[in-house]
């Protein structure tokens, strides 16, 4: 056992500095166990109450989906890939299915298209409600958070009836969906839920979105301008908060979106408040879309493609080729690039999570100069989703 004084002596002899090197700043490990970051950490160099430098430190959730997917048959991959995006697991399912269908040249039945659009919109509303919960907890107004979680639970119950699982419902498959809509009662229940949440939105406004303190807290922090956002590849509500009307549902329409009437909310300020308000308006628009879909009603017909090759799923082969498909998730533009070499497994699969842009480089630049109390708020206002980054 070497005593401490001996260690110090030895270190000095070898020219090592034992004292903290930087005496003006201190380091905060805004780590994965902190309540504001979920499995993600930022190393903050702090000068008193202000951030001098922020270094994003993702990778705690790297599960290697892209490699694992290369060893699994085409249909088995669905159960793996949906775990990439925790708050809205339908998005990876749908983009993967869309890309595979593009390689196969399949035309998805109308009924499956309707179901997919409805499921995506339900996922969007529940993901926004989940985000509302996170934002409310970071701001300290726990009431709004608990309410949002409870309303999300109504959608979870609907998902459970439709697919059998609450969150990770392995539902969308290449060529359609796995099950049909259970009954008309399910559609009525969905309409009730949509109307109920619509009637509860003013409560959220009062307590969270139009609260005096919320506005004081969020105004003018984490400001990004249009050029910066476009340069860094920011998409989704974060980009729309800087004044760019980019929405995949409009720019590159998929599923039933061309037939639906909805607005893309755009704000100009680019600060945390603008990002929060864009999301608040999107909840309203998504509920409106769901109402339209329900008015339209599911078209009759099959809910998935009948193909003789599907009889033997492990041996199911996709012709050689590649395809890219992307959809608008609540976090931004979520894309999948699938390469097939004609075998029964994908040759390569790349997922482009939206958080990869704003979770690493953007956050490092937005946090500079922020107060410590603003750090979690900026992080949540960007809607950072660590599993997207790590994959």
């Amino acid at each position: 056992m070497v005593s401490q004084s001996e260690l110090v002596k030895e270190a000095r002899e070898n020219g090592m500095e034992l004292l903290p090197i930087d005496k003006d700043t201190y380091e905060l490990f805004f780590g994965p166990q902190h309540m504001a970051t979920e499995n993600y950490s930022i190393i903050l160099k702090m000068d008193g109450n202000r951030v001098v430098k922020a270094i994003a430190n993702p990778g705690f959730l790297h599960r290697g989906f892209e490699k694992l997917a290369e060893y699994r048959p085409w249909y088995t991959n669905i159960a793996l890939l949906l775990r990439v995006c925790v708050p809205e697991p339908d998005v990876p399912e749908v983009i993967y299915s869309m890309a595979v269908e593009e390689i196969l040249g399949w035309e998805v039945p109308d009924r499956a298209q309707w179901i997919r659009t409805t499921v995506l919109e339900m996922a969007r509303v529940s993901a926004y409600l989940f985000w509302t919960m996170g934002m409310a907890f970071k701001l300290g107004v726990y009431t709004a958070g608990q309410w949002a979680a409870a309303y999300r639970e109504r959608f979870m119950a609907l998902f459970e009836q439709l697919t059998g699982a609450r969150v990770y419902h392995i539902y969308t498959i290449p060529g359609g969906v796995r099950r049909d809509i259970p009954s008309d009662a399910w559609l009525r229940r969905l309409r009730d839920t949509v109307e109920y949440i619509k009637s509860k939105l003013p409560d959220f406004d009062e307590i969270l979105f139009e609260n005096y303190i919320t506005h004081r807290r969020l105004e003018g922090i984490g400001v990004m301008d249009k050029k910066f956002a476009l340069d860094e590849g920011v998409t989704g509500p974060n980009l729309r908060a800087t004044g760019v009307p980019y929405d995949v549902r409009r720019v590159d329409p998929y599923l039933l979106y061309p037939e639906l009437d909805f607005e893309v909310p755009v704000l100009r300020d680019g600060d945390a408040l603008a990002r929060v308000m864009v999301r608040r308006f999107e909840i309203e628009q998504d509920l409106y879309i769901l109402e339209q879909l329900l008015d339209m009603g599911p078209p009759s017909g099959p809910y998935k493609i009948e193909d003789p090759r599907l009889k033997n799923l492990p041996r199911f082969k996709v012709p050689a080729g590649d395809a890219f498909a992307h959809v608008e998730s609540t976090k931004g533009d979520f894309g999948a690039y699938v390469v097939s070499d004609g075998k029964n497994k994908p040759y390569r699969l790349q997922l482009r999570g939206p958080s990869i842009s704003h979770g690493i480089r953007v956050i490092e630049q937005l946090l500079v100069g922020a107060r410590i109390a603003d750090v979690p708020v900026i992080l949540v206002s960007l809607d950072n989703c660590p599993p997207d980054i790590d994959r």
Partner: protein
Amino acid sequence: MFEVALKALFLLLYATFVGFIFMGIIRKVSARIHRRVGPPLYQPILDTIKLLSKKSNITHGLIYDFGIIYALGATILALFFIPIGSVSILRAYGDLILITFLLEIPMLGIMFAAMSSGNPWAGLGAQRALLTLLAIQVPLGFAIVALAEFYGTFSTYQIVMAQQVSGWSITHVSLLLAAIAYDIVLQAMFGKEPFDIMIAPGEISLGPMVEFGGKHMGILQIQHAIALFAETLFFSNIFLGGAVVTIFASPVLNTIASLGILLIKQIAVLMVAIFIGNIFPRFTIDQAAKFYWKWPTIIAALGAVLASL
């Protein structure tokens, strides 16, 4: 002498128990506002028993242990100075300034302990708590001045007695203003939103509390319970008329009646704090300081000026 000690012990047990029930009420009422069922009222007692029975106990030195005992001691001392009907032990010395001072001391004790742990999060929390402490002094001072000017005395017991004659303090305009300012300050003293900046779970992961565990946290829970009781009691005494019951012949019945009346008033004070705390987000520390030096200060100063006219 023996009788006084017995009385003190009774008072301490009563305050601790009621304080824990108050903590339970906070959790239960918050849960009802959130549309949850919530834990039973006695849940904080179970939590504290669990904390006190933890086997491993981490300590960071003498100050770390001492700070917590210091906080608990100061709270108990503050409790003994506040008149509880006619039971209180040191009520003859229950000076407004002394009690106000003693109610703030626990925060300092917790700061001592937190700072000695060497955790940067605890340091940040301590920094915030001290700034909160600094910010609430101004409106608090004016509120105390208004009271002292109006009643011409610093003695809490005399203020309670005066209210028996002239009606509750909040029925007078000047003291109503002081009460409003004091109630805003109370929000910070309870550690409720929008001024729970020193704890701030989502921001600095519980701040000073981040390093406490086991018996340290258990003692802090007891301290928090007694502080809740003492703070609501002080507010009820100086603004809501306290309770001096003399209608029964037997002193025991009188005591029970006054405790009951005080309990109702304390719960009323607590309810206001819970309702405000559940519908507002948290301020940042600089906004909170600015806020305290603006609206509550203006209101309390106006009250002080009106009281001295």
